[in-house]
Every structure is written in structure tokens, then in C-alpha cells.
């Protein structure tokens, strides 16, 4: 990657301001195999919002989330969570990966998976104890899966698997949640359960960032929205920015100048 100078941002809001914000992204660029996937992202997410991240396939939605959680290297830019690096505030962050990212044939029960949410608190070498199990069971109960705790995970339906992943994030009792397509291919019951859960989290002052695919339900479920197509097309209260014009800008024409430029960049490097 060509050397992109790491410039400290002058226009940063005052420290007190950014401390209160759950997520601030400055100037974020991420590239896979030299091809930029997200470009120059600047984003500030206020506390207690349900935020949808919306955009076409390959718009970099998952990449954005993964870059926030230090899961992939950033080419440039900074991410701060409650004014600190992710490394420092890790315990306040819950992560729900895509369901397809794991092998559901793995020999563990739903309870085992949810208990993994407590591993961070347990730390090295300590075994899963009664307290972790109790917490895990509680979280499973919250997503309506208490009866399925001891099922091997391949015997759960797709929606139940998704809820298991949610429960694993809940067990941490984080303040900000990153969810990668929790609504992908779930049944109606699961969709309702997830929405209720999101609302409940919001009432308790939590912030949720959710990668979402169904445009029809965005205004109904989320009060904040980030329209993403490699760069941020628009971000703000859903009521204001979820407009035909913005959606056209986000989805209209895969061959936007930006992606063409990215292709070109990849070819010459």
C-alpha cells in the first residue's frame, strides 16, 4: 500500500465530546489485497441509538465493522470507542459475527457457545464455571432459547443459531454492540425477537450498529442509519437521510467512479 501519512485530525471535537460518543471513526480506509474496500470513512455515532448500516453487496459493511474491532488491519484512520482505542474498551463492546462465519457442526451445545461470551472476563486458564453458565442460561432465556440450551448447535434452526450468537454477545453486558447481518435468512419469529431485543437494549441506553439488508424495514426498526457504498453516502437520523435521492446514490450503478478508480488502483499496483 502506498504510504498514506497518518495525520492527526485537527477537526476533532473536544475530548469531553468524543468521550461521550460510543463510536467515532476518522478517515478510515481499509484495503484487501491492495483493493480499497472502504474509503475515507468519517462517522460519529451518538449514544443510545439503533443504527443500521445499509448498502449494496461489497459496499464494505462487514469490513467497516471488522475494522472497528481491530479484526483486520486498517490502511489509515482511527477508530475510538468511548474516546479510547478498541483495545482499551474491549469489555464494553459486544460483537455478533455473521452466522455463516462458523461451522455449526462443531461439537458444542448452544449453552457452550453462549458461555464463550464470558471467556474474556474469565481470562486465561480459568475454566467455565457455574457463574458463567448461569449468565449464559440467562442470556439464552432472553432470546427465548432456554429450552434449547443443551442442544448441539447443528440441531438448531437458522434463526435459533442467530439468536444463539446474539445471546453470546448479550452475556457480556456490553455498552455498544456490533451486529453483522443478524436478520439474514431468519424466520419471522426470530426477526420479531431480535427487534424486541434491540429496542430493549436501546431502552437501557445501549448503542447498536446493525448491518442490515432489508431496506423496507429500515425506517421501522432503526432510528439512525449509515448509507454505505465504499464511502459514507449519508449518515444521520433515519427520518432525515433515508431518502430516495440518498438511496439512489448508494445503490445506483455499481460502476460509480469510485469503484472504477479502485479497480484501476489495484491494476497498477
Amino acid at each position, binding site marked *: 500500500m502506498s504510504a498514506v501519512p497518518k495525520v492527526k485530525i485537527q477537526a476533532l471535537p473536544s475530548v469531553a465530546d468524543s468521550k461521550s460518543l460510543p463510536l467515532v471513526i476518522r478517515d478510515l480506509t481499509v484495503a484487501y489485497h491492495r483493493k480499497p474496500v472502504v474509503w475515507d470513512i468519517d462517522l460519529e455515532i451518538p449514544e443510545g441509538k439503533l443504527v443500521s448500516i445499509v448498502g449494496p453487496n461489497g459496499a464494505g459493511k462487514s469490513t467497516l465493522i471488522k475494522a472497528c474491532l481491530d479484526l483486520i488491519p486498517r490502511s489509515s484512520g482511527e477508530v475510538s470507542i468511548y474516546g479510547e482505542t478498541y483495545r482499551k474498551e*474491549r469489555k464494553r463492546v459486544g460483537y455478533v459475527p455473521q452466522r455463516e462465519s462458523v461451522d455449526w457442526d*462443531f*461439537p*458444542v451445545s448452544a449453552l457452550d457457545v453462549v458461555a*464463550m461470551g464470558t471467556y474474556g472476563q474469565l481470562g486465561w*486458564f480459568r*475454566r467455565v464455571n457455574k457463574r458463567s453458565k448461569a449468565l449464559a442460561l440467562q442470556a439464552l432465556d432472553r432470546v427465548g432459547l432456554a429450552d434449547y440450551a443443551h442442544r448441539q448447535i447443528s440441531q438448531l434452526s437458522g434463526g435459533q443459531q442467530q439468536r444463539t450468537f446474539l445471546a453470546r454477545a448479550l452475556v457480556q453486558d456490553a455498552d455498544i454492540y456490533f451486529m453483522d447481518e443478524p436478520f439474514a435468512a431468519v424466520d419471522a419469529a426470530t426477526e420479531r425477537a431480535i427487534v424486541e431485543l434491540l429496542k430493549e437494549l436501546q431502552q437501557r441506553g445501549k448503542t447498536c450498529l446493525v448491518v442490515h439488508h432489508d431496506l423496507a424495514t429500515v425506517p421501522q426498526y432503526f432510528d439512525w442509519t449509515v448509507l454505505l457504498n465504499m464511502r459514507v453516502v449519508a449518515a444521520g437520523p433515519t427520518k432525515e437521510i433515508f431518502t430516495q435521492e440518498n438511496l439512489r446514490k448508494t445503490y445506483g450503478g455499481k460502476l460509480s467512479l469510485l469503484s472504477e478508480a479502485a479497480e484501476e488502483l489495484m491494476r497498477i499496483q
Partner: protein
Amino acid sequence: MEFSDVIDVLLLRNYNTRLVVICTMLLGCACGLMGGFLLLRKRSLMGDTLSHATLPGVCVAFFVGVLLGGQGKSLPLLLLGATVSGVLGCATVLFIRNNSRIKDDAAMGIVLSVYFGAGVALLTMVTKMPDGAAAGLESFIYGKTASMVLSDFWLLTVVTLCVLSLSAVLFKEFRLLCFDEVYASAQGWPVRLLDGLLLALVTAVTVAGLQAVGLILIIAFLITPAAAARFWTDRLDRMLLLSVVIGGASGWLGASVSALVPNLPAGALIVLVAASCFLLSMLCGTQRGVLVRLMRQLRLKRSIGRQHLLRALYEILEADGERGDGISIRPVAFRQVRGRRTWSDQQLRRCLRLAYNDGLIDAVSKEDGIILTEAGLEAAAQVTRNHRLWELYLIEYADVATSRVDRDADAVEHVLGEKLVALLEAKLVKLSSADALEVPASPHPITPGD
């Protein structure tokens, strides 16, 4: 082979046999455990690459030994060489994967064969050296348990203890790593370190096992017990434990048979024993074995057949009842039942036989036709009721057209549990007639049998 020989071997009376058998048992336990993690981490082929890549290291170590003035065949030096080139092989795979668009499997294929090829070339050079032929390096390829000595025993003991204790201490960490690496990383676990540690343990087991089963067969010893164990349980701890047991047992049995029958190499026998365990597990495994699955399918098929038969009988009786005196048991002609569904004479007869065995119908005869028993009528009412409840649900809530609801309902109703039926009842209480045990009327016209 005398009976007393068998006893001698089984009781480990002979010093040499005892050493070899205990060594292969220890190796089997360590292999079973690491193989379990390797299998679940989807790194089986990585183990294969690792073992094949050890050969050039063994040969180079021999050269170095000769150059340093020794006789070359110093075991620690050879194993060190094996470790270094094995790890180098894995590193090459990672390098190719990270710096090109070539995928894992192709990268491993390339590395595995190139390293092995280089090893074979070097080995030919070694055998042409003065001491080379006597060094017996080719035993690393196919394994040669008979040549094991006390130092091998100590090496294997240390390796096995390390592998067992580290896996016990890091069980939680390894489980997370194998199941969801990305989440582990998000939670702050040093995934690369853990992965490296796992690979180091696999390397240790592989290198320690080279002499026993050889670098070609060691992968089978690693993977087969774990794959076999998976058929018996859905819990990771039990699977690993079972894998350790199967690995140990294969090592013991393989080495024992090899000691009894001259000219049968232990490495191959161990792998064959492990493979037999795998085959047995695949067939008879209680969780995912082939037979268990077949049994489940057969049971479902039978239960579906029975439900079809009962509903057909009920609906025929019901049609009669509508003409007058309610539903009562009376003989139904075989032909009439046969016309209700697309089933062959043979299929229907099989259903009837099973229903008779279950006491749902009385004996079937040409003249009398089929007669339900009291219990049969009750069951038939229940089955029909479930079917209709499900149909009503589909029409009401899932917008299924009335004309095709029968078939859609048929696909699901056989797996309705008691809980679901209760839910259906609660939902449909206003649709179906109030009486909880009454069979609601069919929402679509029922085609009469001929």
C-alpha cells in the same frame, strides 16, 4: 504362533515388546488428542504437509552430523532437523497463501510434494555415503517401531504429558479458537499465539511419532481416531477423550499384532486398526453413525405410513358417517383404502401389517376388509385432527391456497410434537369447534376412494 506367545505379548512380558507397545500407546493418545483439535480446526491437511516436510530436514541433519565429525545418526539432531523443516514447510504454505491468490489446498499440495521430493533426493545421497546405508533414515518414511529404544520412550512420555496437560489447561481457549477464531480475536485473545501453540504441539507429536509410524502414515494416526470419535458424541470434551482412547487402543493393538506376526510393520497395522475403529464408528456411532440415521429415517417412514393409513381409514368412515349415523367402526375394503393415496399394493400391505402388530387394526381378510380397533379409531381421530389443525393454520396464517393445503400439511404434520399441537390448538381454538377433542371438518373437499 503359540497361545503362550499371545499371552506374553498381551501382558507385555518381553522387554522389547513392552517398550514398543507402551511407546505406540503413548503416541496414540497424544495423536488422538491433537488430531481432534486439528480436525475441528480444519487443518487436517496441514498435519500432512508438516509430516511430509520433515524428510529433507532429517537428511540435512544427518549431513550436518557427519560434517561435525559424528556418525550422523544422532536422534536428537535428526528430530531437530525434522522439526525445523516441518515448520518451514508450514511457513511456506502460509507464505504462498498470504502473498498470492493460490488457495490453501493447492499451496499445501505444492509444498507437501516439493519438500517430500527434496527429501527423497537427499535420502538417495545419504544412502550412497559410507555410513549412510546403515543409518536407516528410510525408517522415517515408513516407520520402524522395532528400532525404538528407551530414549524414544522418554521422548514420547514427555511429549504426551505436555500435550495432555496443555490441552487440559487451555481447553477453553482452544475450543474458542477452533470454533470461532474471529470472535476470539475480537474478545482480545492472541489468536496467532494460540494457533502457533496448537501447531507447535501438533509438530511435537508428529516428529515424536515419525519413527513409530513414519511420516506418510502419521496423518492417519492423527486424524482417524478423532474422526471416529466424532460419530459417538456431540460434546467436545467427550469427543477428545474418546479420541485419545481410540488412538491409544489402536497403538496398543497395532503394535501387539505386529509383535506377534513376523514381517507385519507396526505403523501400517496401527493405521489399519484405527481405520477399523473409524469404520465401526461410522456405521454404529450413536450420534451420527450411518445405522442410527437409517434407523431414524426408517422409524419416521413407518410412522408416516401409519399416519397415512389411519387418516385414510378415518376419512372413509367419516364420509359414511356424514350420510347418517356418525363415525363407527366398520370394515373398509382394501381397494377403497388403496384408492385414497398413491401407494402400491405392497406399500399398503406393509403399512397394514405394521398397524396390525401395533394393535391398531384387526386381522385383515379378503371378505371382511380392514377393521380398526378401538385404540386404532382413537389414534386415527387424533392423526386426522392434527392434519386438519395444521391445514387450518396454513390457510389462516401462511396464506396457502385451499386447493394445495393437503399436500403442504402432509409434509409437516408427521413431525408435529405435542408442544406444537398445543400451540396450534391455542391459535385455532376459534376456528376449530370448541371441543378440544373434536376433529374439525376438512377445509377442502376430500376425494373419495374408488
